[in-house]
């Protein structure tokens, strides 16, 4: 299988601190990759770099065979990368339905959206997604009436609506109850059936539920990579998490 994303010797500094240090990283097509790492390891920064929020100091990001280093966020999106933010980023005054509607694939140019209408297919697709994220009953409600978990799901639904080639999910279970986390993990598993997903996650229950391949970042570099069971046994990884007991689940 081919790599859909390749990050080559990526380095970035923020006010003197090295966040990512010569990082090499790649994801294969249709893979579900979980990225772990302690706070400050550079997980969110990596997503910021891939999606064009910040420009790297050096290094290259190749997506689908094309160099996207330093491109504007909307250009990178059009090439097929959608991201979810750690804190749900929604359109607060719009209805749940409209949030999905503006996220549907295509018609991003001003003139196209000026003339574009919501077709029957669009409508059916929106309802499909609303069913998928369990928010069909809330379709007409404004987003600010949603609970925290539902807001996370809505953003996942918006990503699915945009039909990306690669989804970058930044801690989608933050601040959820145990029940909510399980449901979210199920959603992500379903999404991963026909999408390439890179998931940044802290919660080990969630990781255990869905992870197959894991990358551990520490201090801006890849510390370990491979199947979850192997990575957990890695001595260096244990050292990074030492004393936290996260990996043992104790």
């Amino acid at each position: 299988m081919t790599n859909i994303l390749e990050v080559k010797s990526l380095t970035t500094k923020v006010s003197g601190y090295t966040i990512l240090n010569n990082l090499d990283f790649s994801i294969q097509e249709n893979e579900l990759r979980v990225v772990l790492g302690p706070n400050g390891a550079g997980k969110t920064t990596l997503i910021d770099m891939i999606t064009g929020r910040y420009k790297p100091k050096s290094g290259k990001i190749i997506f689908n065979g094309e160099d996207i280093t330093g491109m504007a966020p909307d250009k990178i999106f059009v090439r097929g990368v959608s991201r979810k933010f750690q804190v749900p980023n929604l359109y607060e005054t719009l209805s749940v339905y409209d949030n999905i509607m503006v996220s549907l694939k295509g018609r991003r140019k001003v003139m196209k959206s000026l003339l574009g209408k919501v077709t029957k297919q669009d409508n059916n697709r929106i309802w499909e997604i609303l069913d998928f994220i369990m928010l069909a009953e809330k379709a007409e409600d404004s987003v600010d009436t949603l609970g925290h978990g539902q807001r996370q799901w809505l953003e996942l639904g918006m990503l699915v609506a945009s039909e990306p080639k690669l989804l970058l999910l930044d801690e989608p279970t933050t601040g959820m109850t145990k029940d909510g986390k399980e449901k979210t993990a199920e959603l992500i598993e379903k999404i991963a059936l026909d999408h390439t997903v890179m998931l940044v996650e802290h919660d080990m229950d969630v990781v255990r539920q869905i992870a197959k391949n894991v990358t551990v970042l520490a201090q801006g570099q890849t510390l370990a990579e491979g199947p979850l069971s192997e990575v957990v046994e890695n001595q260096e990884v244990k050292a990074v998490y030492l004393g936290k007991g996260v990996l043992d689940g104790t």
Partner: protein
Amino acid sequence: MVQNRQVYKAPMFPLWAVIAAVGIVLAIATYPFYGAAYVTSLLGKFLCFSIFALSIDLIWGFTGILSLGQGVYFGIGAYFTALSLKINYAAVNPTRYGGTIPDFMEWNGLTELPGFMVPLQNLPFAIIAGLFFATLLAFIFGVITFKRHIYGVYCAVITLAESLILQEAIIEYQAYTGGFNGITDYGTHAQINVLWLILVVTIIFFIIGRILTHSRIGTILKSIRDNDTRAEFMGYNVANYRIFVFCVSSFMAATAGAMYAAWNGIISFLDAGPVFSIEGVIWTAVGGRGTIIGPFIGAFLVKGSEYFLSGKLAWTWQLIMGALFIFVVLVMRDGIVGTIGKWWSARKKRISN
């Protein structure tokens, strides 16, 4: 899975609104035949102010760009038209010094029309040039600011500076603009066909505004207003959308200015200045930003009560206006129309449950 499910979407033009609009339009169009001349002259002015407020609402209420300098575009439209009217008027109505160029040019030592102003002798050209120039300026401004991710407070300050600059320039170059005195006495005041023109343009802009904000692009504009980061990471070139709306809005403001100049028969630097610009923001806020009818109600109500109160309560009316604005900002964030709309939909929900 149930197919063909729909969400409720308010109709583009509800029947009751169309009926009410037709009634209001007929009343205004026929008012000059039975009403007071003074009120007629106010009606024309208020309609122009309404369009001006609508133009602010498009960028502020729907797209989230607060401009404190929308008067610039209103002023450009007004000055191009007034200059053309004045040049033509002076050509056939010699000043008391016998000249055939506008009086303010004579006072400032000009003996003939400056070469760059000669094209303004053609009124249709002058009007179109004014609208074009205003839209072009808006486009350039948009490219400079929005493309570089400048918005919010910074954008408000820059636009404010823009209107200050234009106001100072008008005062400074008085040989060409009439300076502090403005442009007066060019023979058009409260002509009834101009009122009808204003009315028709108001209706057109109202419909354009409604279509623009109620269709798919309207939802996109609102999403940019709500969360521009999300929109950007969803593939929307946020700057392009902002530039587009800003140009449409400035075109509307310039058109309002051009008609205002023709209707009012006198314009001055104040019509391009920051005070007028901010007044427009207040009308929009009072009427209800993010609604299409709000700016109209706001402009008529605030400006109307200003004229009414300044006659009755010469000393305290400004206090009352100030208090009204503070009340709206503190208690009715969504303005008159927005508050009523929210109350109405809450009531509907209560009944349906």
